């Protein structure tokens, strides 16, 4: 596929198929639109936030085929065939919160919550790969996400609460983001 030049106006679109939060969608997206913009604008899932649009703040983090990814650094067309999970896809089918959401609620992890979608996604991936991280490992695991409000302690507390919640659920972490 050839990408249009920077000054090519809107109009030309490419068809992609992407699974978002468990639903397979067929979309026509503009080739130069970022995945974040596709998620926020074309699919109207605005829970994924844009803090910097240059790959540092982590607010746009989603799970792409299970891996935490910066939606601001990818094009929408690159998600063709992929499985995407956003913050809106975390809650259980019965509407109750995912254990990580529940834990962050208990720990009063956030303030303005603009960073929240990214921290939730990074935490889910972190705990899936390492169900009982130490505090240092938690901090390291979240170091790709910026929060300007909290000083991070409450978020670390939230992750530790999540570890306990998940352990007591015994089923382990919800395999969100795994390709179905």
């Amino acid at each position: 596929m050839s990408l249009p030049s920077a000054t090519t106006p809107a109009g030309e679109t490419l068809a992609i198929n992407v699974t978002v939060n468990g639903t397979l969608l067929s979309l026509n997206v503009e080739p130069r639109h970022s995945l974040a913009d596709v998620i926020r604008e074309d699919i109207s899932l605005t829970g994924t936030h844009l803090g910097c649009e240059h790959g540092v703040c982590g607010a746009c983090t989603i799970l792409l085929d299970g891996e935490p990814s910066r939606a601001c650094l990818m094009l929408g067309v690159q998600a063709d065939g992929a499985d995407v999970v956003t913050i809106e896809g975390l809650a259980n089918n019965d509407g109750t919160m995912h254990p990580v959401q529940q834990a962050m609620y208990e720990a009063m992890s956030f303030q303005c919550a603009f960073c929240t979608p990214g921290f939730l996604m990074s935490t889910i991936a972190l705990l899936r790969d390492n169900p009982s991280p130490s505090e240092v490992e938690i901090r390291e695991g979240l170091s790709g996400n910026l929060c300007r409000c909290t000083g991070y302690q409450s978020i670390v507390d939230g992750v530790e609460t999540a570890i306990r919640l998940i352990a007591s659920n015994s089923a382990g972490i919800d395999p969100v983001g795994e390709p179905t």
Partner: protein
Amino acid sequence: MTDIPDRQTSGLGFVGQRVKRVEDERFLIGEGQFVADLNPKGVLHAAFLRSPFAHATLNSIDVSTAAALPGVARVFTAAELNAVTNSFPPLFMIEGLYTPLYKCMSEDKVRHIGDPVALVLAESRYIAEDALELIEVEYHELQATGTIDQALAPGREQLWDRADGNILGDISADFGDVATIFADADRVITRTFNCPRQTNQPMETRGSVVIVDPATGHLEIHNTSQAPHFLKWAVAGLLVNDGAFRNLSRFARNKDRRKAFSAAAKAFVSTNKQKLLEQDPAGQKSQMKKDMSFLRAQARMAMGLLASNDYPTVKAGDIGGAFGSKGSVSREDIALAAAARQLGTSVQWIEDRVENLLDGGQAREERFTVSLAVDNDGTLKGMKVDAVLDGGAYASFPVSAAVTVLLWKLYMPGPYDFKAFELNAKIVATNKGKVVPYRGPWANETWMRERMLDVVAKELDISAADIRLKNVIREENMPAAFLTGPTLDETMSVAKTLDRALEMVDFDQLEQDKAAAEARGHRLGLGISSYHEAAPGPPNFFSSAQPGSDMFLHEDGRAEIQADGRIVMYTSQSPHGQSHQTTYKQVAADEFGVAMEDIEIVWGDTDRTQFSFLGTGASRGGPLGAGVMRMTARELRNQVVKVAADMLEAAKEDIEIVNGNIHVVGVPTRGTTYADVAAKVASDQAVSTGPVFKEEMKYEGVGNGGWSVATHIAWVDIDLETGQVEIPRYLVVEDCGPIINPGIVDGQVRGGVAQGIGAVFYERHHYDDNANLLSTTYMDYLIPTAMEIPKIEIEHMETLTKGENDARGVGEGGMIGAPAALTNAVSDALGVDVLEQHLPPYRLLELAGIISS
């Protein structure tokens, strides 16, 4: 005020508990409503063309190619938008200060990198940005001013023709007999301290969505504003109203509007009579000497307000942090509203991060030369400070850098018993982004004073703890008029936090830890800082800064009970992370004797809430915002109790409300409910909709306390090989009165300290000497992550005050105390005077003598 006992301190109810945040029920599932989430159908997307030069004149601009790009709806040049908008007039005028007027866009001259010169509106942000590339601008570059030294130097290119060089303000104040105190002291110790530029950097950038009603032209502005009411008035007053004269005469003929206006004006004058009389004309005179045009600008703004039949509605939804940066009315806000009105089409601007770094709000680039007159036994006697504040290019509106100077005037001697104080402060213009309030805008006074105390202690060979203990003002000497005017109250004393903090340090252990660090090739140091903060301050606080200025500081509240019994509370605050919804529900639920979910909190919508000049800011949400919620709820409850008492055929004194059951004490089975009482009143009044009970209140905070106080102690460990820093322990002992919600207060304290850690070790908003901004991304402006911010230990004192609402503000304190504690710890660790606030690894190694500077 009422006959109902105060539940605040009774230990019952929600206040004081770590109640989980109701906000999180939306946020954690991705259902926040931030401004960028609105994205209404058909909206045009804005992109501003911004100057690539720090200082230049504009020779020509050609937007024709850009305007012809498919998908572009319109390109406005600066001249076009300036023609339909008024200048931003100065609002805070201070003796010795000149505030240049400016327009929403720059058409003749640009004064910083990022200065807006054209506005594109297109179908998508992508196309709008494409169009920016097609605009041709011819600039003529001028000499730029990038440093304080350059700004003070004579003979350079001026940003503003009418200024004295690039000096805009020269403001002085003195208290006590400075000359005698300095002559009599054993010695005078002098140092110069520098703090580089920082930026607030909330995770959400600024943004505005202006929706135009096609039928009426009414503007509904969704904005990331900390002060939506002020934005509403600013837009109404700054957009030139084509039919102004026609409207004015219509206004004159319309008896109802005239009546309403004169009633409002009369009410304002009578409420504020004393304060209006106190107003000092010296500030206006200073401004007039340089530039009379503000009179015209103010008149135009006033006429705009009178003549417009329809003010915009401003709505602030969820806001992703601000830290002071969203309290100002942005030039972009005005340009955007003007464009929407011109086009009759809804438009939106979502700032990107680069723009936010360019001009989303910057702060704290200041220099202080401080002399302390001291006796050899460590008694502090006098303080003289020469300060310079780098104000950047344009004054932020309405709270400009000048307000920082006013607050320095009050705060600088801090919690210590100085006998004399003199301040000479200059505000200079440089070719940089605008200076806004940043979490404790005056905070560098604490940094330089507390740093200086350590310098003095070292020279006199006494400990950092002892010099503070010796000079801190103690409760037994209060209440007292502080040297600079405001009243200090014994219920909130810094001394108590200092004593407690020192108790929590094991100084013997510290010596061992220092030795152990040294053995590892590290250095460990401990730093102390203490401060008091007017949050919201005693009643005479703001009038001590600027006579009469406290009339802007009312906080109003309204409470209603609807016909179906629902309780609705209206606040003029504009929350952006402080959890107002949760805390206000806690406060109101306790007053009403109901569950938190029975209370609805309305905020951010200017059609529904009362006017507030400041909105959320200045740590007012607890003391004033929650205070007025409490008082309003209490009055409204009394109204309900009166009716319920009749219904229950009892005396109102015998009524209690538990879990929403309104009953005679001891007879819960024969109770009624808010819904029943409301239904009864509604049926009596034949009201089917709208509130059946209503209460409105103004509140200035009562009592003579109003201070939040704290002592911070930081331990800093420096690796001499890498310059890397660790903070093995960080302790905050604070007293903000009884806490409404400890989970939320802890978060505020930690967040503030984290920003202080960022300022000292990581963040520098770096302009070069030619005022080119070098930190235009987060790769250059380093915000600390979870790896850099340690666990912060917090000890609360919770002293009750004598006021009706004991809660004190806590939002700013963390950031006020941290830079001093950290730089003092570095000084202790390395055994050198630290004279600058920003200490990245290379600088630490230079100070340690490992590498040469």
